[in-house]
């Protein structure tokens, strides 16, 4: 956020080195008072419905607990800033030049080993779960969770091309997900096409829609573009709901054909997957196959993105994100550059959508509302716009985290029997997005690998580039 600067003696003296307890208490008290004021109507009263009438019940305890939490947090923030300014006031020689010549950070040391490790875990995941749970049927829940997480990883990587690399905020990404899902659903139920033909078709159709929607809007400035993509996303959803003749409206399309193992169906009978390979029939074969399918699709997204970054078009995206006017004066066709980012991002959204349809066997417009776009955007923002591994970690934490929390029984003992972390998931997403923008605008993983290297590989601090990418 700040320009690189070298600490001057004057600044050193200005920094407060002592922790002013009374001022901190005063401020924390103020914050607590405001929180209490904010919580008066919504938290301390609850509207209950009985029959046609509403009546109120009060719960001041909850409001007081929240107020106390804010008070404590505020004090901690003060203590933290005081200790940080103390550290800044007594700089070590290394720190003074940190911003200019960034040392390879801990993340970069770790990432060399972490990425193959994660990949290995992802590939071995069904086997690990099989060993831990001791049976195919018992591991169903975990593999389903793995599929869900990988779907979001793929969507996050797809959106990352548009938001992270090209710097275009797309609030309607779920529209392309919907186009992919409905393409497969309609093509397979109407024309009986198989999944392997529909998958590329869904990608092409989504990319086509990306271009149709993208073309008129790409000359708009950043936040207008975001709002227009939001409008398009909603229009597509509303059309899906209301165009009953084609899409079957809000009821959705059901009994979509299942995926086949390159033509061999996962059925118990003659010519099925189990019989062909001499295995005992088990419904889990299909689930495990779906797991590897989405893993392959996600890795394809990642691979294509990494290669594109090295191509002229990928470099133009990143240049565009950093400074559009400079780009234009250097002769980059900004409209075409943006359009390719939009279309390629949309294509991966389409792939993911068609996977979604084949996995669920059912699509309805309700799966493609604005909230879904917001969740994918939250994953990209919190992971660090432009960072592939960051997006993957964010997807695992944000999608898998609430599920894991739900299984922790001691939380139920603390918060009561009806506690379901999934209820609070979006609440945490919202707070997380704000917190990320305030404290770490470059996301969890702010380091970026440069795509072109002159002579030797250097670490680039996020502070040296405008939007945090090397």
């Amino acid at each position, binding site marked *: 956020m700040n320009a690189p600067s070298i600490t001057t003696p004057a600044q050193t003296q200005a920094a407060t080195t002592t922790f002013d307890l009374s001022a901190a208490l005063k401020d924390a008290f103020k914050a607590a008072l405001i929180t209490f004021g*904010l919580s008066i109507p919504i938290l301390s009263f609850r509207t209950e419905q009985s029959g046609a009438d509403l009546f109120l019940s009060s719960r001041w305890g909850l409001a007081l607990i929240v107020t106390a939490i804010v008070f404590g947090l505020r004090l901690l923030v003060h203590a933290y800033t005081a200790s940080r300014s103390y550290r800044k006031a007594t700089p070590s020689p290394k720190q003074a030049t940190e911003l200019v010549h960034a040392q390879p950070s801990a993340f970069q040391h770790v990432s060399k080993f972490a990425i193959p490790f994660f990949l290995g875990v992802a590939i071995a995941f069904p086997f690990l779960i099989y060993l831990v749970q001791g049976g195919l049927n018992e591991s169903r829940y975990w593999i389903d969770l793995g599929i869900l997480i990988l779907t979001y990883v793929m969507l996050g990587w797809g959106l990352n091309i548009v938001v992270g690399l090209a710097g275009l905020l797309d609030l309607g990404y779920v529209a392309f997900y919907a186009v992919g899902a409905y393409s497969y659903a309609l093509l397979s139920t109407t024309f009986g096409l198989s999944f392997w033909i529909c998958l590329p078709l869904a990608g092409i159709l989504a990319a086509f829609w990306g271009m149709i929607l993208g073309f008129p809007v790409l000359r708009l400035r*950043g936040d207008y573009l975001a709002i227009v993509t939001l409008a398009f996303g909603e*229009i597509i959803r509303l*059309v899906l709901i209301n165009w009953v003749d084609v899409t079957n409206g809000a009821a959705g399309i059901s009994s979509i054909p299942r995926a086949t193992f390159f033509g061999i169906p996962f059925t118990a009978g003659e010519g099925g997957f189990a019989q062909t390979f001499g295995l005992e029939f088990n419904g889990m074969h299909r689930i495990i196959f779906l797991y590897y399918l989405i893993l392959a699709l996600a890795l394809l997204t990642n691979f294509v993105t990494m290669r594109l970054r090295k191509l002229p078009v990928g470099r133009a995206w990143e240049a565009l994100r950093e400074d559009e006017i400079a780009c234009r004066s250097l002769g980059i066709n900004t409209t075409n550059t943006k359009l390719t980012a939009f279309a390629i991002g949309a294509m991966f959204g389409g792939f993911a959508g068609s996977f979604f349809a084949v996995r669920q066997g059912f699509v309805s417009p309700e799966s493609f509302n604005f909230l879904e776009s917001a969740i994918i955007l939250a994953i990209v923002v919190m992971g660090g716009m432009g960072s592939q591994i960051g997006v993957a970690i964010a997807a695992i934490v944000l999608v898998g985290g609430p599920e894991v929390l739900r299984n922790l029984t001691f939380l139920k003992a603390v918060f009561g029997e009806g506690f379901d972390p999934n209820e609070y998931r979006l*609440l945490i997403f919202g707070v997380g997005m704000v917190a990320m923008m305030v404290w770490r605008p470059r996301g969890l993983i702010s380091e970026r690998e440069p795509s072109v290297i002159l002579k030797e590989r250097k670490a680039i601090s996020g502070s040296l580039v405008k939007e945090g990418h090397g």
Partner: protein
Amino acid sequence: MEIFVQQLINGLTLGSIYGLIAIGYTMVFGIIGMVNFAHGDVFMLSAFIALIFFLILTTWLGISSVALALFFVLIIAMVLTSLWGWAIERVAYRPLRGSFRLAPLISAIGVSIFLSNFVQVAQGARNKPTPPMIRDVIVLFQGESGYNVAISYKQIIIMVMTAVLLSIFWYIVQKTSLGRAQRACEQDRKMAALLGINVDRTISLTFVIGAALAAVAGTMYLLYYGVVSFADGFVPGVKAFTAAVLGGIGSLPGAVLGGLIIGLIETFWSAYFSIEYKDVAAFSILAIVLIFMPSGILGRPEVEKV
């Protein structure tokens, strides 16, 4: 003809509500150039505050006069929603000044998600109906086919309230020192700061005023429809933003004009074309206006500074 007049009345009522919300968008955009995405949810929150205090006043404190209760509810909702508006600006937007250009918008989306889910978790996901508060209508004239054109007291209250608040507000912006400071910050924030205007305070007050007007809109919405749910912030918010852009973002009369136009288009579209596609119409207008006339009806064309 009767249907036309009736829809005109309904459309103007709806448009007044949109206009009140749109002012919040337009002012914030004018002064710091950000789309306050969370404004629709602030509006929804204010409707909940109004609902809760209406219930407190009528059932616990036993105020039987609906008009008196409404008056108090309006004041309380305005105060508490202003506090929310102030706190949101302080926590989520102020630290981001000088950050990269999409940061405030992403933060605003975060606030929007937070607010709607906060209300969902705290108040439950179901629609909250209120007993109909004011039922009387005035029959304006009777058509030949027996179709009565009527204006309800609710609609009169909403339109009169909008007009009165707008005049008060117009006076503030045009005549008081706060309004001068606001207009100065809008033109050049750095210069205004050099001339001794407390820019942070002015921006905070802009959010407070926007939230207070959203609270008026929220109370009126509750009065008019008699039902509110946690998800009600999104679509009215987008429509009000459309109104702000259509009228020319940054322009106050433009926001009201845009609100009335959007309200009229929505009601006439529902009456004459199809009610299912009314939101599609609103979103399409938003896209078309942003693409083809981004400076709106009353706005100044934007000059790109290098």
